[in-house]
């Protein structure tokens, strides 16, 4: 080895210089990307977690099938298991509908009913009530662009959330644009849905009373694992279409919202569309890692979060038109987020 080393006097110094140069380049690159992240954070944009989608996705799906939560527990264990769950996720045991030993598994406990009267329904016919327990993440009116902000610096489109074939009413372009031809060629078979936000010239004839201008509003509510997980009807409305998007099961907690883009349009979700007294109404139930399956009491046969042979890009959503329409009263149970 000694003689070999003597054979090439430049080997060791060359390798040393190359190594130092490479380390220097890596360090410079790291400093550059840190500076970029710092600048982004200063402007309020969280660095995006570059998820290795396939790995993450399979892990999250496997988690959602995690057996023990669906296992039937021995009767004597149940109160301890459910109390532990309640303590971990701050559930209110005072409101639970049945004695704890009646819930055979954690899955049953997660979808528990509450005691009668625990959630009085706001009876004012002019109010729209919350369909679930949770925390309000976003509320607002959709102006020109139908985009909902996920986090500062990133928004997703409502049509991606609800589906390309959504009945979402057209947002008429701003009044200054000539909308006559656009209106004709845009009105399609669902014209009864195409409610143009009437610009002055499109307003109805003076003879009929001016119909109120309509806006599109949205509200995003996040449920923590300990929340009551049944979904109720926010108003009296008729449901016309159900759309199920089999998708990913990224977590939906605040850290994930800040770092994984497109969460709401990537995750498994079920969308209901219909109409209420003021026009269009849609409700999207978006699943997450520990809550993989979304049950619809109005369509008990629906199964979500089915094991897939391989990770496929989210296929086109499965759609079902309800005929006759499903009529829901304000406060009716519609479905639930469940484990598994």
């Amino acid at each position, binding site marked *: 080895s000694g003689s070999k080393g003597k054979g090439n006097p430049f080997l060791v110094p060359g390798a040393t210089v190359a190594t130092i140069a490479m380390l220097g380049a890596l360090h410079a690159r790291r400093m550059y990307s840190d500076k970029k992240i710092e600048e982004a954070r200063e402007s309020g944009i969280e660095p995006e977690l570059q998820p290795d989608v396939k790995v993450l996705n399979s892990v999250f799906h496997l988690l959602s099938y995690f057996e023990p939560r669906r296992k039937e527990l021995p009767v004597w264990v149940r109160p301890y298991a459910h109390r532990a769950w309640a303590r971990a996720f701050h559930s209110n045991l005072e409101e639970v509908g049945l004695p704890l030993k009646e819930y055979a598994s954690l899955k049953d406990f997660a979808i528990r009913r509450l005691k009668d009267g625990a*959630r*009085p*329904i*706001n009876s*004012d016919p*002019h*109010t*729209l*009530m*919350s*369909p*679930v*327990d*949770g*925390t*309000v*993440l*976003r*509320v*607002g*009116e*959709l102006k020109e662009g139908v985009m*909902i902000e996920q986090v500062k610096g990133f928004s997703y489109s409502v049509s991606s*959330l609800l589906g390309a074939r959504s009945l*979402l009413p057209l947002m008429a372009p701003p009044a200054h644009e000539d909308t006559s031809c656009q209106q004709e060629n845009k009105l399609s078979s669902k014209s009864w849905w195409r*409610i143009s936000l009437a610009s002055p010239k499109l307003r109805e004839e003076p003879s009929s009373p*001016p119909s*109120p*201008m*309509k*806006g*599109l*509003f*949205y*509200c*995003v*509510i*996040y449920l923590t694992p300990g929340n*009551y997980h*049944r*979904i*109720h009807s*926010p*108003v009296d409305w008729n449901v016309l279409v159900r759309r199920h998007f089999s998708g990913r099961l990224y977590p*939906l907690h605040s850290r994930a919202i800040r770092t994984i883009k497109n969460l*709401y349009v990537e995750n498994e979700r079920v969308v209901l569309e219909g109409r*209420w007294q*003021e*026009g*269009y*109404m*849609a*409700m*999207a*139930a*978006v*699943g*997450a890692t520990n*809550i993989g399956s979304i049950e619809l009491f109005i369509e008990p046969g629906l199964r979500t979060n089915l094991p897939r042979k391989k990770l496929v890009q989210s296929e086109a959503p499965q759609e079902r038109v309800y005929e006759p329409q499903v009529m829901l009263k304000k*406060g009716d149970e519609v479905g639930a987020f469940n484990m598994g």
Partner: protein
Amino acid sequence: STVVLVFQAPTTSPSSEFSFCVEKGDKIQMGEALGR
């Protein structure tokens, strides 16, 4: 999990204009008014 509502409501009209009675960060229970 998360629920997203998207709905039409009056913006400017003689009788009523929809407005939310909750704002970002509020905790809410099922059955409580979101807006009117």
